[in-house]
C-alpha cells in the first residue's frame, strides 16, 4: 500500500498468500470463532450438555470482582516489568557503549538469558526465593526482611516481576546498544568539547536520540508482559497468594484449562482478543508513521 510501483495483477499473489491464509484460517480463525461461539455457552467439561446463554458469561465477568481486579493488576505488572527491564538494560547499554574493547564479550554474556524457557526461568526463581531453601531469603534475613512469597502478596508480585523482567533484559539491551552505537560519534564529541560530562551527555544528547527505540521497546515489553509471562506465573506463584499475581492471561488459562469452565474462559479470551486487536491497530499506526517519514 506504500509502494508506488507494483507487479501487474495475476494469479501469482493469491498463490503467494495462500499458505499463510490457509494456515491462519484453519489454525487461528476457526478455533478463534469456536471460542467466540463458546463464550455464549455454559457447558460441562465433556461437552455432554450445553446451554446457550447469550451474554451471561460476560455479565458474570463484569460483576466478578476477581476479574475486574486482575485488569488493574495486569497493568501494574506490565508497567513494572517494562520499566524494570528497560531501565536495567539502558544502564548496562549506556556503560557498554562507552567501552572500546570488550563490548562484544559483554554483549555475549548478557544476551543468553533470552534463550531460557519461561517455565524454566520461573522454576529457577522459585528455587532461589524458596522461603526455607532459597539463597535470597537467607540473605534478606540478615537485613531484617522476612521473605515468604507464599503468604505475602506484595512479595509474590515482586518475585514474578523480577523473574519476568530478568528474562527481557537481554532483548532490551541489544536494542539499546545498537541504537546508541548508531549515533554519530561527532555529535557526542561536539558535546564533550562544549564541556558536557558523561552524565549530561547521556541525558541531553544520547537519551533523546534513542527515544524511538525506547518507544518501540515499550510496546514490545508491554505485549510481552501482557501475554508471554503466562509460563513464569504458572511456575512461580500460580496466581497466588489470594489472587495477588493473577493477571488476565493467567486467569484465562486457569479458568479454562484448570477449572474447565469453558464458557467463562472463552468469554475472557474474547475480551482479550478485542484488547489485542486494539493494541495491534495502535502499533500499526505508530510503526506506519515511522516508516513514512
Amino acid at each position: 500500500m506504500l509502494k508506488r510501483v507494483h507487479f501487474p495483477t495475476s494469479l501469482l499473489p493469491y498463490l503467494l498468500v495462500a499458505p499463510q491464509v490457509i494456515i491462519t484460517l484453519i489454525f487461528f480463525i476457526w478455533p478463534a470463532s469456536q471460542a467466540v461461539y463458546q463464550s455464549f455457552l455454559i457447558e460441562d467439561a465433556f461437552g455432554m450438555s450445553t446451554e446457550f446463554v447469550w451474554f451471561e458469561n460476560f455479565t458474570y465477568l463484569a460483576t466478578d470482582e476477581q476479574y475486574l481486579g486482575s485488569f488493574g493488576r495486569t497493568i501494574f505488572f506490565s508497567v513494572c516489568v517494562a520499566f524494570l527491564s528497560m531501565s536495567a538494560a539502558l544502564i548496562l547499554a549506556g556503560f557498554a557503549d562507552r567501552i572500546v574493547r570488550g563490548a562484544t564479550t559483554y554483549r555475549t554474556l548478557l544476551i543468553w538469558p533470552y534463550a531460557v524457557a519461561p517455565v524454566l526461568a520461573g522454576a529457577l526463581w522459585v528455587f532461589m526465593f524458596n522461603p526455607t531453601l532459597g539463597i535470597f531469603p537467607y540473605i534478606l534475613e540478615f537485613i531484617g526482611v522476612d521473605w515468604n512469597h507464599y503468604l505475602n502478596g506484595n512479595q509474590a508480585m515482586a518475585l514474578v516481576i523480577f523473574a519476568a523482567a530478568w528474562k527481557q533484559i537481554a532483548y532490551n539491551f541489544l536494542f539499546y546498544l545498537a541504537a546508541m552505537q548508531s549515533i554519530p560519534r561527532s555529535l557526542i564529541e561536539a558535546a564533550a568539547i562544549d564541556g558536557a560530562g558523561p552524565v549530561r551527555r547521556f541525558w541531553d544528547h544520547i537519551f533523546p536520540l534513542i527515544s524511538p527505540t525506547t518507544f518501540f521497546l515499550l510496546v514490545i515489553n508491554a505485549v510481552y508482559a501482557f501475554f508471554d509471562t503466562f509460563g513464569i506465573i504458572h511456575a512461580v506463584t500460580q496466581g497466588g497468594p489470594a489472587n495477588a499475581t493473577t493477571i488476565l492471561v493467567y486467569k484465562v488459562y486457569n479458568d479454562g484449562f484448570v477449572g474447565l469452565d469453558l464458557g467463562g474462559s472463552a468469554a475472557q479470551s474474547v475480551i482479550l482478543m478485542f484488547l489485542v486487536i486494539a493494541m495491534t491497530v495502535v502499533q500499526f499506526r505508530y510503526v506506519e508513521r515511522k516508516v513514512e517519514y
Partner: protein
Amino acid sequence: MKLSGMLLAGTAAFALTATAAAAQTEISWWHAMGGTNGERVNKIAADFNASQSDYVVVPTYKGNYTETMTAAVAAFRAGEQPHLVQVFEVGTATMMAAKGAVYPVEQMMADAGEPFDGSAYLPAVVSYYQTSEGELLSMPFNSSTPVLWYNADALAAAGASVPSTWDEVKTTAQALVDNGMDCGFSFGWQSWVMIENFSAWHNMAMGTQENGFAGFDTEFTFNNDKVAARLQDIADMQADNLFVYGGRRGDSLPMFTNGECGMWMNSSAYYGSIKSQAEFEFGQTMLPLDTSLADAPQNSIIGGATLWALQGHESDEYKGLAKFMTYLSSADVQAWWHQETGYVPITTAAADLSAEQGFYESNPGTDTAIQQLSLNTPTPNSRGLRFGNFVQIRDVINEELEALWAGDISAAEALDNAASRGNDLLRRFERTAN
C-alpha cells in the same frame, strides 16, 4: 504426516515395538505420576503385560493432575480418549456428571464378565467414589489421608509430648518455639486438611445434601462458627510463630524437613520424601481432635486420585481393562504399591498382607493413615465430597484463607466469602450437570 512417518520409520527400534504391539489389544492409560511413582506405574503395567499375552497396557504421563484431566477432556471431545485416565478426587463430581463419557468401573467389570466384590475394599477409601446406592464409579489408585507429622527430636528437646488434641498442639507448639524453633507447626493442602478433613474428623457436614452425594443442589455450610473458631485460633497463633503459613499443596515441606517447624499436617504419602530428607527422628500420628466439638474423632477422608474408564471403545478392549482392574486390586500389587509409595492400600487383604509381611513393625507409624480411615464406619459427613467445579472452589478457599493468614480479614469473613463464591460455582455447575 509423511515427514513424521519417515522419521519414525527411520528409527528401527520404534518400528519393532510397533509390530510387536500390533498383535495384542492395546489399552491406553493416562496418568499424572511424575518422578519415582511414574516408574512404579510403569512396573505395574509391565508386570501385567508379562502376566498374560492378550492385552498390552500402555501408560502415558500427561502432566500433573489438572493437565492430565484436561488432556483427557480435550481428547474425549475430539474422539481420541484413552481407555483409562487418572483423575484426582476433586474432579470426581465433574467426571460423574458426564454420564455419557465415563464408564462406571463396577458396571464395566460386570459387562465384561469380570468378578467384582465390593466388600473387599476398604469402606473409607471406596465410599468417596461410590454413588449413594453404593455402585463403584472409579477405581481408587493412589489414596492418602492427612496425618500429623512431628519432629521427634525437637519434641524431646523441648520436653513436649506428641499432641492428640488441638489444645495440645498449641502447648507443644509453644514449647517448641520457647525452645528456639522458628515455627511450631504448619500445614499444606489447607482446604483438604483444615476444612474438608477437619469437618469429617468431627463429623460435621461441609455442605448440604450429604456433602453433595444426594444432589447437585448442594450448598456449602463450612462457614460455621466451629470451623471459624478453629481457623481464627490458628491465625492468632501466627503472632508468636506457633503457626507459620508455608504455601499451598506441599510447598511447606522444606520447612518441616529443615527443622524450622516441629509439626506438619499433610498427606501420609509424604513418608518417602520426609524419610529421604529429614536428618532427625520423625513420626506420624493421627490428626488432632478439637475437644470442644467432639469426644472422639469420626474418620478422616481420603485424597489422591482414582482411575476412570472412558466410553467409546470396543468391548474386547474393556475386557482387557477389566482384567487389569482385577490385577491392580490384587493383594500383592496393592501391598507392594502401598509399601513403596506410602499411599494407603485399597483392599483389606492388602492391608492384612502388609501387616503379615511385618511392614508396620519395621516402619512404625505407617499404619496411621489406615487407622484414621477405618476408625468408624463412614457417615454421610465423613464418606467423602461430591462438589462440582471443586478444582476452582479449592482455589477460592486457598485465596480466602491466604487473605486470613495475611491478616486482611477474619476467619468468619474468609469462610463466608469462600462459601458464597463457592456456591456461585456450584450453581454454575448445577446448570450443566442436569
